[in-house]
C-alpha cells in the first residue's frame, strides 16, 4: 500500500467522555488533514478539544466515531497493545511539564524511549548523546534534569522525543513553561530538527508568539476545527479580535 499524501486525515471524528448528565462531547466532528513535512499548530480556547484531538492522533485515546488515518494507520482500530507498540515506533512526545525523570541523568532520560523498547543499552546511550549534542547540551550528559534551566530541560525533552526517529511529533504547549525568548529558541530548535519530508509535527499552543513557526494553524472551537489558516492570517484574526474587544470596553 503506497503512503498517502496526507500524513493525518480526520473525517468527522467524534469523542465523548462520560455518560448521562456527566457526558462531555469533547470532539463533535473534527475534519482535518495534515501533510507530510508540515508543522500544524492546534489553537483555540481552553476546553475546545485540542488535547483530546492530539491524544487521539497520538494513539493515547480512541475516537468514538469517524474516520482516522495517522501515518497510514487508524490507531483507534488497534488493540491496546498494538497501539502501545505503534506509539513507541511512530510517535514522539514533548510535554508541557517536560516529565523528565529527576533521579537519572539527562543522557539516560533521552535514552528511555529506546530502552523501553529493549534497544541495546550502549547503542541507546550513543544515540541519546548524539541527540543531546544536536540540542546543544554536549558536555552536560551526566547532569540531572533539576540542575538545568526550563529551556534546557525542554531541549532534553526534544532530544528524548526524537531519539526513536518518530514520524509524528506531538508537542503539548511546549513553550508554556518557558519565558518568551526561550520559547522562541525552543520552537526554532523543534522546527530545525524536525524539518524532514517524512515527518509531521502537531503543536498544541496558546502562545501566539510561536504561530510563525507553524506552516498552518488549525482553529478549534467547541469540539470542531472551525477553519485552517496561515500563521499570518491567524495573527491578523487575533489582532482583529483584540481590537474588537478593546472597542467593546
Amino acid at each position, binding site marked *: 500500500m503506497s503512503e498517502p499524501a496526507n500524513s493525518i486525515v480526520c473525517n468527522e471524528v467524534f469523542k465523548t467522555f462520560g455518560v448521562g448528565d456527566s457526558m462531555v462531547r469533547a470532539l463533535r466532528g473534527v475534519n482535518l488533514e495534515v501533510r507530510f513535512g508540515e508543522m500544524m499548530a492546534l489553537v483555540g480556547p481552553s476546553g475546545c478539544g485540542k*488535547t483530546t484531538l*492530539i*491524544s487521539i492522533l*497520538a494513539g*493515547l*485515546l480512541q475516537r468514538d466515531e469517524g474516520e482516522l488515518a495517522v501515518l497510514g494507520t487508524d490507531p483507534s482500530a488497534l488493540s491496546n*497493545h498494538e497501539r*502501545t*507498540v505503534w*506509539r*513507541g*515506533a511512530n*510517535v514522539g*512526545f514533548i*510535554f*508541557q*511539564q517536560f*516529565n523528565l*525523570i*529527576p*533521579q*537519572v541523568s539527562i543522557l*539516560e532520560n533521552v535514552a*528511555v*524511549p529506546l*530502552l*523501553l*523498547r529493549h534497544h541495546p*543499552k550502549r547503542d541507546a546511550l550513543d544515540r541519546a548523546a548524539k541527540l543531546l549534542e544536536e540540542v546543544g547540551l554536549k558536555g552536560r550528559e551526566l547532569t540531572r534534569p533539576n540542575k538545568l534551566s526550563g529551556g534546557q530541560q525542554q531541549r532534553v525533552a526534544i532530544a*528524548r522525543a526524537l531519539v*526513536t526517529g518518530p514520524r509524528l511529533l506531538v508537542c*503539548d504547549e511546549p513553550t508554556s513553561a518557558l519565558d518568551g525568548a526561550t520559547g522562541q529558541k525552543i520552537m526554532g530548535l523543534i522546527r530545525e530538527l524536525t524539518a524532514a519530508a517524512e515527518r509531521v509535527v502537531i503543536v498544541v499552543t496558546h502562545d501566539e508568539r510561536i504561530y510563525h513557526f507553524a506552516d498552518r494553524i488549525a482553529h478549534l472551537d467547541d469540539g470542531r476545527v472551525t477553519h485552517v489558516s496561515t500563521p499570518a492570517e491567524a495573527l491578523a484574526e487575533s489582532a482583529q479580535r483584540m481590537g474588537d474587544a478593546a472597542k467593546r470596553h
Partner: protein
Amino acid sequence: MRTIAIKMLFGDTAKFYGILLGLSFATLLIAQQASIFVGLMSRTYALIEETPQADLWVTDPTMQFVDDTKPMQVTALQRVRSVDGVGWAVPLFKGLLVAKLPSGARQICDVVGVDDASLIGVPARMIKGDVSVLRKPDTIIIETRGARSRLAQPINPANPTGPKRPIEIGEELELNERRAVIGGIAETKPTFQNVPTIYTTYSRAIGFAPANRRTLSMILVKAAPGVSVTELRDRIARETELAVYTPDDFAWTTITYWMTQTGIPINFGIAIALGFLVGVAIAGQMFYNFTLDNLKYFGAMKAMGATTGRLLGLVALQGAVAGVLGLGLGLGVTSIVGLAIPGDKLAFKMTWHIPVIAAAAVIFIVVASSLFSMRRVVQLDPSEVFQG
C-alpha cells in the same frame, strides 16, 4: 531500563531510606524475636544435647519435660537393663537443691548425678580439671557460667555485696548440709532455668538430696550393637511401662510442653506479628507512595510506548531490590546483635528457618505493596500526560 528503575528507587532518598528502614526493622523484629524464641526453646533441652552418648531416655510416664523430674523407684533401672537389646543402662539424678556458698550466701543449683562407674552424663568440655576428679570424695564439677556469675565470690569477704571473682577449684559449697568440693569447671550449654548446674556422681547426688524413697530421675540407655533404637524404645516401653524417648523425641516433648503450657509463644508471636505490621505499615505505605510519586513518569513512559507489562516489571524490580536490601540489612543487624550479646545474657539461636521466615514476610510485604502500586500503574491512562 532496569538500571534506570533502580536509580529511580535510590534517587528518591527520603522514600528509599523509609522503605529500607521499614523492611529492615520488620526483618530485625521478626528475626530477632524468632531467634530469641528458638534460643530459649533450645535451652529447655540443653541436658539432652549435653548427653549425646544415650540412644534412649527412660522416664516416669507422667514426666512432661526435661526439668519436670518425677523420680522412679531404683528398681526401674534393673527392669530396663533386663530388656533384650539394651547395651547399657545408667541412672541419672536431676534435681534443684539449695547450695550454701563460701560467702554464706545461698543459691539454688541444678544438681545432675551421673553414673558412678561410667560417669556418662558429665559434660565433655572441661575448662579446668578432669572428669575423673568425680572419683574423689565429695567432689563436684560446676559449669563456667555459674562459676562466673551466681556462684561468684566477693573479692573482699568482709564486703559480700562488693566486686566478685569467679569461684575456683578447691573451694567448698554445702549442699543439704553436706560438704561439696569443686574439682573441675566445665563448659556447658545454657539451660532454660538459668541456675548454676552442678555435676557429681549419682550416689553422691542422692546423698546431697533430701531423703526420698524414689531417687532415680531418668535412665540413659544405649542400644546393643545391631539393635534398632526405635524397636528397642518400643520394647522397653512395653516391658517396663515407663516412658521411653529418643533424644529428638524427648527434646520435642519438652518444646511442646513449653509451647502449649506457657504464654511464651504468644508473647513472642505478638512481637513477631508487630514486626510484620511495622513492615506493612512503614515499608508498604512508603513503597506505594513512591510509586504514586512516579506515576507521571510511568504515564510518560506508557505514552512513549512502554507496555503495561514492561512497567509492572520495573515496579516489581524496584520492590525486589528494596526487599533484598531491607532483608539483608535486617538479618545483618540481627546477627550482629546476636553475636555481640553474650550467650548467657541473651538466648539467641538463628536456625536456617528464621531467615527463610523473615524473607517470606518481606516478600509478602513487598509483593502486597507492589500489587497495590501496580494496580495504579495498570489503571494509568497514558493520555493523562497531557493534563499538566
